[in-house]
């Protein structure tokens, strides 16, 4: 009796797992996209498609998208920056041509601690802070204290985009601290009264931080065209996307996808000039 019951359960389990032909979509890359936006898009996509589909999303920085696509450990790569020439060359040397699709626009927001009275910075001041020229808040008409600048680390797309948008391709200052993700930067700036850092717009409402306007322009989605640090984000695939990959990427451009993009704090491509 017992053995036959066990056998029946085992047989049922095998049958069920056999029927569910799971297709897994592996997505690797940017922390800006992969922490909130892409998981939410994946969830909604799964709901609207009855097929058994599972998503495997790991967000360790935009640079990991290209290394994973090249070694075929990812189907889709998320990147918050454009691919570099040497990365294209590297992929071509492996016989892979990557196709790029622009999805949402992100605003890189400068945040300070909520106890910091500075509300506006010029582009030059932002450059001076993150290259280490400005060392004390009194130079910016804030409360005296040593500036603690938090940045992302070298695997991040935001790191490189910020370097070209805000620093004019100068190197970051040696005293900056390299954090692993947006949440960490927001947490540290919230806890350090002298802290300043940059995060994606979706993370700007963290506890204890306040956003700063750049040259008088507040970083809100309505101002995406005039804000100094807005940048497009991309998805990359190996060759032309097909099957489930294509369906997912098409879903992102639909109005339903736009709603999710806006709710995550990004600006849908349709709203950008």
């Amino acid at each position, binding site marked *: 009796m017992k053995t036959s019951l066990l056998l029946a359960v085992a047989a049922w389990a095998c049958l069920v797992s056999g029927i569910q032909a799971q297709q897994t979509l592996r997505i690797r890359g940017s922390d800006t996209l992969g922490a909130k936006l892409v998981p939410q898009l994946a969830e909604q996509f799964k709901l609207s498609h009855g097929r058994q589909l599972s998503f495997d999303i790991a967000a360790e920085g935009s640079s990991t998208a290209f290394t994973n696509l090249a070694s075929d450990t990812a189907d889709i790569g998320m990147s918050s920056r454009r691919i570099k020439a040497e990365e294209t060359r590297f992929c071509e040397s492996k016989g892979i041509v990557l196709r790029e699709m622009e999805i949402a626009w992100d605003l890189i927001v400068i945040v300070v601690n909520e106890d910091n009275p500075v509300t506006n910075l010029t582009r030059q001041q932002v450059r001076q802070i993150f290259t280490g020229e400005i060392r004390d808040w009194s130079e910016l008409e804030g409360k005296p204290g040593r500036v603690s600048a938090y940045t992302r680390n070298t695997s991040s797309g935001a790191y490189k985009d910020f370097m070209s948008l805000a620093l004019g391709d100068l190197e970051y200052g040696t005293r900056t601290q390299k954090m692993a993700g947006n949440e960490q930067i927001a947490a540290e700036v919230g806890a350090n009264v002298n802290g300043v850092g940059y995060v994606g717009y979706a993370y700007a409402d963290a506890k204890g931080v*306040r956003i700063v306007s750049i040259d008088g322009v507040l970083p809100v989605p309505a101002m995406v065209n005039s804000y100094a640090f807005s940048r497009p984000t991309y998805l990359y695939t190996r060759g032309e996307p097909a099957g489930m990959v294509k369906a997912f990427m098409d879903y992102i451009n639909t109005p339903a996808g736009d709603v999710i993009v806006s709710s995550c704090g990004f600006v849908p491509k349709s709203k950008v000039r």
Partner: protein
Amino acid sequence: MSPASQQPSSRPLGPLLLRKKGSSLFGITRASLVRRFFSAMASVAIIVLVLIMVFLLRDGAGFLSTYRASLDVYRKSGMELCDLLEQPVREMQDKSTSLLRHALAHELATLTGEAKQRRDAVVVLIGKVQAMSAPERTALEAVLTASSPLELLTDPRDQLRQATSRAAMSIPIPSVLSSGEAEQLRRELATLTPERTEPLPMLTALEAEFATQDTAARAQFAPLSAAVIACEQAPAALYETLVPLHKHARNTKELAQKRLSSRDQPEVHFPDQLKPILDARETLLTRLDDYGSRLKQAQAALPAETRSEEAAELLAQVRELLPEQAVQTAGIREKVLEWDGMHTVSMFHAALGFCFGPHWITNSPWQDFYGVVPLLTGSVLISVIALLIATPLSIAAAVYTSQFASDREKEYIKPVIEFIQAIPSIVLGFIGIALLGDLIKSVSHWPLLAWLPGFPIEERLNMFNAGCLLALMAVPTMFSLAEDALNSVPQSYAAASEALGATKLQTVFRVIVPAALSGILAGILLGLGRVIGETMVVLLVAGNRIAIPDFGDGLGVVFQPAHTLTGIIAQELGEVSRGSGHWQALFMVGILLFIISLVVNWCARAFARRLETPKS
């Protein structure tokens, strides 16, 4: 007498193997089979170790030649010359302009300080009230974006109004505002709604007050202001001359890299490419001299008298810097004149650059530098802090447990301390971020402890935080080894000491502990080896600043953030492409760690052997 021994020709294998000792199969007895099995297990361990070393060396060995080639292109494209000029100038500029701006801020504060504090207080309070009513605000925005009919909007709007007035009533207002002003401010803060576009009247008033005082102050301190601007703009001409040279050098580097990646690309003739840069040398030197004289002028224009003491101190520092800067400029001039673009970079130079380079810069649009000194100092300092905390704790615990504790106490203490080893390091990392960082920070703000170097600290993630957690990890190792060493001191020592009339304390500290010293030292060194190799904790908690810590703070340097050898490998390995220079550099760092661990363990064994007590 077994039946099998009477029929030697058809002996089955089973009883053969189970035969008593003395019999052999192909010359292998059962005892030697067991011996060979165990020696094979031991050699597997040695073989794995050798394979690890080979694997590390294979991937890291190419590094020196790759780095040498990269530095060679860096020199031959002229990028080195640009950096020779630009880097020291930028460093000097950053230091002196920062001091000057700081001094100007102090001077302005003497006249506008109070008005500024009042305005800043109101700005901060507005932000805080908005943050406190944020949940209701987002609810209202959600309803608005969903374009609901007007009736549905009234409820969220009411909620927001109530939340804002609650926040306005409860928020503490600093004493820079008088009580009457505080009342008025509370009333105005309660009217903050998203539809309100004009700023609060109080803020406008305070802004106006500050603005008038500020213009008056700036007019009064105009000479200092002008000197600051002159100093900031002094190198402008030099930077301008460098811009086209930068582009040209970067272009040359790209051509060289293209040639490296495929032989079809045209070969790069470096002397031709260098020509424009070498021709510009004279102009650059003229600009450099010009920069030097402009600096002198700007600093001669500094006012002799200042209103505030801090400004006077800062200006004195700036004046002290002037002769140093003149010497540095002369040094730059010499280096630029002697610079030879076609002198090939040697392997030795590349190796020196790795071992003693002060910059670890990767993924740079300009040039990557792989110098381990910042990472090495971070690792060493954190290990030293961890050892300093762990050694007294573990040795004291070991001495107590082995010499003074009762048996029942031993039953509790030993397992609990050794259980600490079972805590996963990532959990300790979490504790460091979530608990320890805030704890250290709030303790450092106590007025009682303000005399300690480096206090009060603002950074939660620093070397001391990492050192504490690593000390916790090292304690079980050190404790076990020290306790074993103390327990293995022969009883005859203690007996003889007591026979000679020593008290228990004297016996312990003058006879037993010195006798066990070799084991204790070995334990400390093994703890050090454990601590140097720890990755997760330092990656999460040490602050990740890739710079040599500033030893000018004295002992306060332990409260600065830093990066470590292990942390940099963990942080950067995800993004490197196999076989690239960066990949090889990370493997070289791994080799360095391996060597350090080997040396530490070898020292531990050498100590243990040298100080061994003669076994009676």
